[in-house]
């Protein structure tokens, strides 16, 4: 091949997602999916979308009905919401729209956090400045507040630890530098108990975007739906580069049905939070150091983490292992069903014999 690659891409390391095993029989606690099936109303919506047989037609390019439903519930305008093919797409649109190639734009992010931010920044010719957070409280370092980065990505709660940062700290990030865009990635917000508090920031600050996903609390990772909320002017720039048919018909219908099935998902979320407390306790009893998590996962540190990851996999239990130095002594474990958690604990006990 003699074709020159865009320099930013040549240097890029692709984001490596967690394994998706093809053999049956795995207990899958590695990609922070919900262990619960979709609400009956969502299954019906998928069924209806299939049997109406209109999926030979291009989808609504604006995902209007879905966005309207979300906008009404959040109390924002339609033009303040962009829906994407997973929140991955909306985060990508942020980078594509706001990072100017060749101008030295840099993104800011905590370390550790969701590593896709760095990949996206590099894809669009920028680099990432990281701000290390450390035990016991993983606080946002003081230096992050006035760093002159172009876009600051704050996952809240922040994987893989699960730390929840209070609203005042996000306000400070936003207020300290109004020419800096703050993207609050709320993929896990439903497990944190803070509700829609961050949406008020969008009203109060012109440089705040809040992204969400249906992949976690709404059990819909397979259909890829995420959205981002912000000032109209910001959303409009991202709209320009969005693929016009980015969100397929089935996903639009299913996400809307999911968004309306409030009780079903609130119930599952409650269960997951309960099981998170149970698992945290159980792991601590087994000698793991487990910081408080407000996501649908916990991060469990123990010296033998790397070996444990492999031995668990041999037992068909998948958890996520990161080799980065500040994470290499831990496992990120998704909160599965109580049965799956018990299988994991039995596995751990068997291995420590």
């Amino acid at each position: 091949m003699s074709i020159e690659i865009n320099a930013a891409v040549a240097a890029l390391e692709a984001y490596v997602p967690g394994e998706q095993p093809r053999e049956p029989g795995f207990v899958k606690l590695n990609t922070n999916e919900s262990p619960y099936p979709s609400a009956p109303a969502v299954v019906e919506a998928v069924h209806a979308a299939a049997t109406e047989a209109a999926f030979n037609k291009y989808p609504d390019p604006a995902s209007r009905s879905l966005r309207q439903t979300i906008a009404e519930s959040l109390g924002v305008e339609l033009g303040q919401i962009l829906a994407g093919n997973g929140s991955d797409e909306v985060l990508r649109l942020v980078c594509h729209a706001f990072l100017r190639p060749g101008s030295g734009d840099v993104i800011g992010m905590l370390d550790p956090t969701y590593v896709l931010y760095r990949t996206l920044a590099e894809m669009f010719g920028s680099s990432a400045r990281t701000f290390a957070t450390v035990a016991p409280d993983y606080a946002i370092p003081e230096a992050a507040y006035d760093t002159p980065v172009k876009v600051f990505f704050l996952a809240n709660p922040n994987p893989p630890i699960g730390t929840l940062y209070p609203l005042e700290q996000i306000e400070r990030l936003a207020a300290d530098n109004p020419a800096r865009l703050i993207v609050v990635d709320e993929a896990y917000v439903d497990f944190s108990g803070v509700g829609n508090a961050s949406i008020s920031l969008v009203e109060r600050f012109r440089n705040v975007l809040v992204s969400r996903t249906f992949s976690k609390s709404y059990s819909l990772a397979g259909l890829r739906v995420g959205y981002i909320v912000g000032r109209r002017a910001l959303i409009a720039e991202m709209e320009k580069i969005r693929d016009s048919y980015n969100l397929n018909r089935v996903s639009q219908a299913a996400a809307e049905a999911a968004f309306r099935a409030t009780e079903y998902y609130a119930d599952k979320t409650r269960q997951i939070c309960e099981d998170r407390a149970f698992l945290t306790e159980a792991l601590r009893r087994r000698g793991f150091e487990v910081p408080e998590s407000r996501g649908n996962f916990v991060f469990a540190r123990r010296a033998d983490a790397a070996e444990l990851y492999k031995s668990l996999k041999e037992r068909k239990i998948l958890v996520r292992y990161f080799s980065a130095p500040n994470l290499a002594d831990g496992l990120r474990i998704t909160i599965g069903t109580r049965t799956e958690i018990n299988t994991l604990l039995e596995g751990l006990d068997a291995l420590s014999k």
Partner: protein
Amino acid sequence: MSVLVPYRSALKSLAPYPPGKPIEEVQREFGLTNIVKLASNENPLGPSPLAIKALAAESSELNLYPESGCHYLRFKLAEHLGLEPNRLIFGNGSDEIVAMLAQSYLGPGDNIVISEHAFVRYEMGAVMMGAETRTIARLDWRHDPVAMVGACDERTRFVFVANPENPIGSFNPLADLERILAGVPRTAFVVLDEAYYEFARQNADYPESLQLLRNHDNLIILRTFSKAYGLAGLRIGYGIGHADAWDPVDRVRPPFNVSRAAQTAALAAMDDSEHLQNTLDNNARGREFLYEELKKLGLPYVETAANFILIDFGRPAMPIYDALLRAGVIVRPVGIYKLPNHLRVTIGLPEENQIFVDALRGVLRN
């Protein structure tokens, strides 16, 4: 209050892609209930019944992320095409593959070569990445191979050849493709966009481009499940090329870009040769019918190898488009393709074609 965050300067000249008017919008605007949409080159027979069945059964694993690289579809399609699986890449529509190619290979100072009236996505990709677009005049509605090659230089990264072209319907034969491939520098890809491949190959002289892959590492072929397979609403297309060509594309590809629904339906649709055959038969019949009627109306058109026809009104076509809308027929204005006197109509079911012709006759009479 205004936003102070500066954005990429490339966006200043970028207008969003204007998609075909959705049926629901026309219903709202004009208070119509019966609408015939012949605007987006979709399959008028609907999706394959096998795909419907497969999708209706898809519900138990929606909570899990889909296959990242469309594993099962990749192997099935590779076998079907007689290719190595690593020669394939999948996108959220072939639109996404065009966008990913642009992201992977284009930057300021680079350029792409297209023909005039080309499908708009190519130029949008170039604009998005700050690259230049060189537009070449056509020869009798076809790509001009010599001029396209002549426009290339060492900063050309793509020569986009939609075959057949949308919105025209014309195609270039094998000899032309060979001429382009022989002349284009090795530092540029030739991207053959074959979105209408299944329709086009019904023509005896339509080139079977897969054979060209053997000798041309810089050839990329794009196809889609949106047209003949009837899955436009699910968003899935694929690219065929050298595995090395996909290496950077795979790095910019979102890890889970194709949904479970799309993968499931595409797997099933591939098995439905009966639906495909019905689709091709309906298209051939509808094409002949529309040719006849257009001749009767005295309207010139371009012979099509695809599932749409480009009609020449010899005067600004927007008033005709508007009048058709009011009559409940959505077709496609092609002003953005610099064809202000033309409209593009998708070949529909027999009754839809008839409604279109009747409406058109009424509009032209007034």
